[in-house]
């Protein structure tokens, strides 16, 4: 009788230890999984941030704006000459940057601005790429007075 009790107690002690080990093993596995997820999340987050450098945007926008100013001051934007505009774009923009320009020209008549002309220059805007924008309004002078008012919109992207 006493021997049976001793044997039962021994087997209960063994199964208690096994349960404890299993519990510790589960906690250990959970912690490992948590840490693994944390490391993975950090890696993904950092890699996403690394690919989306915000200063890159600034540089592209600046390049586009500068090109518009150069083209306007040279009188090329108001010329309406597609060959000249495209040649000037190629000469002004840094290599590896594509651009598309849309120029809307307005004329003032009867107290309002009416559209006079709309021209498109440059490459087609690609899909699936980050597109940035720049714009410039300018005045066309003819016969010593403001003949028309134009608005140039530029789409720029890295090829």
């Amino acid at each position, binding site marked *: 009788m006493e021997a049976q009790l001793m044997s039962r107690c021994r087997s209960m002690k063994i199964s208690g230890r096994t349960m404890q080990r299993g519990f*510790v093993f589960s*906690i*250990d596995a959970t*912690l490992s999984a*948590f*840490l693994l997820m*944390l*490391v993975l*999340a*950090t890696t993904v*987050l*950092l890699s996403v*941030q690394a690919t989306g450098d*915000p*200063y890159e*945007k*600034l540089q592209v*926008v*600046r390049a586009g*704006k500068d090109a518009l*100013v150069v083209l*306007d*001051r040279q009188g090329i934007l108001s010329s309406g000459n597609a060959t000249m505009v495209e040649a000037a774009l190629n000469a002004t923009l840094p290599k590896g940057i594509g651009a598309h320009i849309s120029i809307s020209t*307005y004329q*003032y008549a009867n107290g309002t*601005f009416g559209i006079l002309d709309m021209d498109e220059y440059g490459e087609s805007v690609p899909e699936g790429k980050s597109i940035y924008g720049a*714009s*410039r*309004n*300018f*005045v066309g*002078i003819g016969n*010593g*007075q*403001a003949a028309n*008012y134009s*608005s140039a919109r530029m789409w720029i992207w890295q090829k």
Partner: protein
Amino acid sequence: MAEMTGHRRGIFFTLSMMLLGSALLSFIFFLTEQSTKSSDTVTYLIEVDRASDKYSEIEDGVARILSPSINISVQNSTVRIYETLPISAQMHDDLDRFALFEANYSGMNVSMDLTNATKGGFVIRPSGAIVANSAGDFRVTPQNGAASSGTLASYDVELVFLPGAMDNAAWLAVSNASGTTMSVHVRARDASYAVVKDFYKTIDKYNSSSINITKSGATVAVVGFSSPAALRVQCGENIGLKASISFSNPAYVETDDTISVRSAANRTGRVRIA
């Protein structure tokens, strides 16, 4: 005793894992915050750029509209103003329309007060000399007393009349040159160069001198210099006026009006045109 050591190890292991986890989380938060700050900085820089670009675009537009009637150029310390008088009423309309166009088509909150620019009103900086046009009157007036008039070194004025519109010119009054002098050159001629009258003099900045330009004895224009180093040209209509004003320091010209570009980064100021 052995079981106690195992428990402690377990607790230390758990704690160290928690600490490592917290450190990693803090690191992620720190990097995310830095990245957000960097993005915010870029966004703000783009806004500053946008406002500055719009401002300089308006300056270009205003200068372009003014240029057929009033051509202003600056070479170091000399300001050259070429005008055809009277100033075209068309210029006034063009500036108004330009302001309307920018307000409606700029995509930004732009407002302009170009009241004085439409009348040919400018400020020469840093001396603060005011250039003003009114009917039959062109004035250059240093505003800040001696600090302003002291830097004004010379005037070179040319009045171009229609052929046959003038036939003589003479000094009406000449101030004696004293310690504070400026040199002046006045040329009155007709467009065909049939009559050309040149006057060179070193005069007192703080006294009055004037030249009378006549046609058959009748006054058609007066070029006057008065204290403090001011110039006034009184004339009828349809003349070409070239005024070259030299200072002792480098100068630039602004319109006597302001424009505002409102965005996340506002910019308000006078339009620098030369």
